[in-house]
């Protein structure tokens, strides 16, 4: 029983990471009907920049005074700014022109190409080996007692869950409550009409890419302490997030959280009860099943065709 709880718990924390990345896909898909096929690289870059930043902060004379935890917190704004800039670069080089050509193939190939370039540059800067990311929280697992079951939890896994929810809520809050956020929603609803109302939709799309990469970079520093950090760390995560985005629905905010949890939990269960080699397989099967049964995703709404 307790092993089951433990599996479900780590499934939830992995799933939240998938959810945040998929949330990033949604942000750009809503405004521009495109998404960044190099999102995994955005995550890896975020984590690597975070690693350099935290080592730098911790290495300064104040470092020993403030400790790893505070260094981690101080590093986060730097990573967010970096992610923001990286997203604008992706939009400028990979998407803007491709949207005007109206070719599906164009932006898919150019965002993949940018992902490849980023990965290669990261390999040249940070090397090809996985690096250890200092953990801001104690790494020893704590025991949680639910009365009927007892299981062990890594504090960082808890931090992932809260961090992921926090960034998604922050972006949602921004979109709903600020004027600029309203422009984002307006563009998402009808790009042409928003443009006619004087909204600079090009800038909105660019901004949504910036936000998308920002969330990915944040996900990178969230997950980094419990894995190895390196240029290729994002590839599989980005791919899983595709599955999550489709399962939850590319157009539904709630969907990615639930989709992430479904995928994360199925994976850890498959990994433990069947074989760790097969843990990635149920994702694809779920993905195909959801597309076959409800193509707009579990929580997505079918769009109305306009003539």
């Amino acid at each position, binding site marked *: 029983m307790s092993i089951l709880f433990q599996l479900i718990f780590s499934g939830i924390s992995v799933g939240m990471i998938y959810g945040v990345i998929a949330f990033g896909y949604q942000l750009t898909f809503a405004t521009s009907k495109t998404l960044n096929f190099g999102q995994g690289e955005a995550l890896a870059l975020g984590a690597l920049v975070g690693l350099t930043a935290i080592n730098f902060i911790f290495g300064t004379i104040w470092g020993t005074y403030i400790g790893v935890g505070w260094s981690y917190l101080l590093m986060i704004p730097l990573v967010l700014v970096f992610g923001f800039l990286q997203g604008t670069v992706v939009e400028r080089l990979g998407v803007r022109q491709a949207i005007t050509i109206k070719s599906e193939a164009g932006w898919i190939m150019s965002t993949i190409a940018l992902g490849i*370039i980023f990965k290669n540059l990261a390999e040249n800067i940070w090397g090809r080996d996985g690096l250890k990311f200092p953990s801001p929280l104690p790494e020893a697992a704590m025991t949680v007692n639910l009365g009927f079951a007892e299981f062990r939890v890594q504090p960082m896994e808890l931090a992932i869950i809260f961090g992921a929810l926090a960034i998604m809520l922050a972006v949602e809050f921004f979109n709903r409550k600020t004027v600029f956020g309203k422009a984002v929603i307006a563009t998402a609803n009808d790009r042409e009409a928003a443009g006619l109302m004087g909204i600079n939709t090009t800038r909105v799309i660019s901004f949504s890419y910036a936000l998308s990469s920002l969330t990915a970079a944040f996900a990178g520093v969230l997950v980094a302490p419990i894995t190895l950090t390196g240029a290729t760390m994002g590839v599989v995560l980005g791919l899983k997030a595709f599955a999550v985005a489709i399962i939850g629905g590319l157009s539904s905010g709630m969907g990615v959280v639930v989709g992430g949890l479904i995928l994360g939990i199925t994976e850890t269960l498959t990994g433990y009860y069947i074989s760790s080699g097969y843990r*990635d397989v149920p994702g694809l099967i779920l993905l195909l099943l959801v597309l076959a049964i409800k193509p707009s995703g579990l929580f997505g709404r079918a769009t109305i065709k306009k003539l």
Partner: protein
Amino acid sequence: MRHITKGFWLVGIAALIAAPLVIHNSYYLHLMVAIAILSILTLGLDVVFGYTGEVSIGHASLLGIGAYSAGVLVFLFNLGFWYALPLGLVMGGVFGLILALPALRVTGPYLAMVTLAFGTIIQILINEMVFLTHGPQGITLYTPLLVNLTEVMSWLPSSWSESLPSVKRIKEIQFFYLVAVALVFTIWVINRILRSRFGRAFEALRDSPIASDCMGVSVYRHKVLAFVISAVFAGFAGVLFAYSEQYIAPNNFSFELSILLLLAVAIGGRKSRVGPILGATIIVFLPNLLADIVLFRIVAGVIAAIALVWFIQSLVKRSESIRQRILPIILCLGFFGFSLWLKQITDFKLAIFGVMILFVVYYLPDGIVGFFRHFMPKPKPEQRHNSVAAKNHAAGFWNNPIKSANPEILRVKGLKKHFGGIRALDGIDLVVQSGTIHGLIGPNGSGKSTLMNLLTGIYNPTEGQIELDGQSLAGLNSSQIALKGVARTFQNLQLFNELSLTENIMVGLNHSYRSGFLATAFALPQARREEAAARQKSLEILHFVGLADQGDELAKNLPYGKQRLLEIGRALALSPTLLLLDEPAAGLTAPDIVELMAIIRKIRDHGITVILIEHHMDVVMGICDSVTVFDFGQKIAEGLPSAIQKDAKVISAYLGQSAT
């Protein structure tokens, strides 16, 4: 032009036959085999990527499926090449179907996402299922010896058989010819498919998916078909690949290869046969190019030189595109400079690869073939069809007009369509008499077009029934409804712009073919007969709408008024019982409108019921047998045109209530 292409292909085949006699180095022969095998794959990929515009990032895995079909047969059952070949084709097709059926249900980047995930999963599965695939250790196979020449020759004098090359060499040559035949066969079959109704459908669904569905050409089914075709060729290439490399392992079929294959099609040139082959050649040499810094500098220099010539040409011609050409030329020169600066290349291999993709996407969207096509004189459209012959048979397609036995062809009961809180249609009852022209009028936003979209299955009703000829249309999609005999035109024209007039009509005639896919792919006599018949019929229809002399023109080049007529012609190709015309006179000049009215009357006289939405009152009053008036999603009046004109409700709906 046709002769030139034919000559070109004959030279190509002759070169293939001569190659092993000239090339004695088995490394180069192997390179040619590799190019041919990848060409089979990229030619198939072009059907999806070039023609339907969908992106597949899983073709390397489909190649792997084919290769492992061969590998597993050897590994587990010791069965050789001739067993692997059919299995590879079937497995490619089956996996293609499993991916395409769910992924293509919705438009968007779904196929790319699904195939990308599939690629990763397949690599994991091949690694994990050791009992089947031998896992990461891979499988070794041996190039088959198809005909044992030493045995065949054994009855000859011994001096002859001694002069034969070694068994290894014979194997190489035989396998080369086998792959060459496979390549020529692939080109032939793909040409047959793309020039048939299937190829037209692939292009049509890209131009206007809605119109395709409404012509009975299901977008979904044809996209799935295109993907399965390409998957079968990928499986085919996979079997050949396994026997050519003689060793396969999971990491042969990586994500990078899938991207490389897409790059091959894009860089060579989409929607052509030469392009994918050229692209395959480039990607076979790419690893060598990216491993040798000197070679890389030379190639970068040549590219920069070509770009410079291209730029100077535009300066000389003073063409307007100079400003657009500045950036790519700077990039090309910069790339050359970068190649000179670079000390060693291996660390930046992938980044260079990425830059190549970006460059192709932005500055070479039509590939190398498209780039050089710009310099060639444009071929004149060939007058392949005799329009006089069409004139003589102009009445042909009216021979058996479909008359409905039912006096009421269309019955609509309590039809509602709500978009959120907006009641676009709020409980409509409508009966259309067979063989009449029934007008639908009403102010903008009164629900006329919504009704049209409900009748053709583009929308699903919120409530209510639609019966065509006594049969309910509930639950049918657009293309099924079209095949039941409901044709339509569109308020905003939805022509297949990249197709000729004749081909536009022939898409509408898609329903008239009986021969299946295989009969078409192998150009069996029945398929050819039907193609000729459809071409003839399309000319007759063009003649009927007065466009017979422009049959080979592209639809986008037609003036607006003629485009409306072409749309009516395309709808007639469906041999409909009910024809829906959505504002056919919008934007037409007065003489065009007279011609249009005559055509609509003729259509009615041949037994086709017409529903006409129109704002030109003189058209409505002039040709309609009865008229229904809509306002705010409800029917406010119905009857003869003359009665409608005097109806107080109608007048107030159009002009507003009088003040008194």
